[in-house]
């Protein structure tokens, strides 16, 4: 009954097993690195937190782009995900800023 199968759905290429392996390797390496620096004096420097944020954002992006194959998928899905993600991140930053400064003079 499904002869006029939805077009375009499978036209895109998926990442391959080779890529999957690399992705997994990178994820592991980054995680190991993150945990490792947690135990180094680097933790006390002001660069620690930004570095961690960058690293986890990288992991986040890798999983979304390859495992969730967003990189290869329809642009609609990119929009459906990045739009909300941006709003969520901005809201989080705004809330964080609102709660972390003592507002009232005196």
């Amino acid at each position: 009954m499904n002869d006029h199968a939805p077009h375009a759905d499978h036209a895109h290429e998926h990442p391959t097993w080779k890529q999957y392996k690399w992705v997994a390797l990178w994820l592991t390496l980054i995680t190991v690195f993150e945990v490792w620096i947690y135990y180094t004096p680097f933790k006390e420097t002001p660069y620690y937190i930004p570095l961690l944020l960058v690293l986890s954002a990288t992991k986040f992006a890798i999983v979304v782009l390859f495992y969730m194959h967003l990189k290869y998928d329809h642009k609609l899905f990119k929009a459906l995900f990045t739009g909300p993600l941006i709003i969520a991140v901005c809201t989080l930053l705004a809330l964080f800023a609102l709660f972390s400064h003592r507002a009232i003079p005196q």
Partner: protein
Amino acid sequence: MASAVAEVHEHTHYTTTGLDNRKVAIWAFIGSECMLFMSLISTYLIYKGKSIVGPFPHEAWTDPSGHVFKPILNIPVTSQSTFVLLMSSLVMVLALAAVENRGKPGYQGTLLGNSKLWLAATAALGATFLGYQAYEFTSFVHEGLTIHTNLFGSSFFTLTGFHGAHVTAGVLWLLTLLSIDIKRGLTPKDALLVDICALYWHFVDVVWIAIFTLVYLIK
């Protein structure tokens, strides 16, 4: 929440974009989940350092009776569970590839094509993660941190608990797929069923990536 990914057996009609309805819906659902976890994570961050009694995540604490509490978070253990969850994502993509490529050379009859194995492995790794979490929760309770203790306890358990609930739902979903696979075998026509489950599963993984950094590694 499950309702959002419902209607699994809907037939594939003509669609405007050529995409399947269920896949559109799951992405919308994932977008929505971003806001859900944003609220949980924000609350955790806002309340960090605001508890008036211990235990605390990263600092030791002595209560008025002189009892000393260690910093509560156990990085080595959580690193392991994080690794488990990351690997579950790997086997998840393998499961999807196995179903999608059923019958193709390189998959037919090979390890790579064994979708049942990969589905089972994903579910098992998810369950392992949950086991770690159960261990973590009980040891925290033993160390004096419950959901009632302080702001940290409330926000920590609720945040990680919500994530754990998502993992649980994912494991159930995977087991359902596994049982279908065992019963009648998933074919490339069913790839979408696995795909939407995989998207959900990876998203839950991605949330953990954020939680691991923001909650565990950053002081």
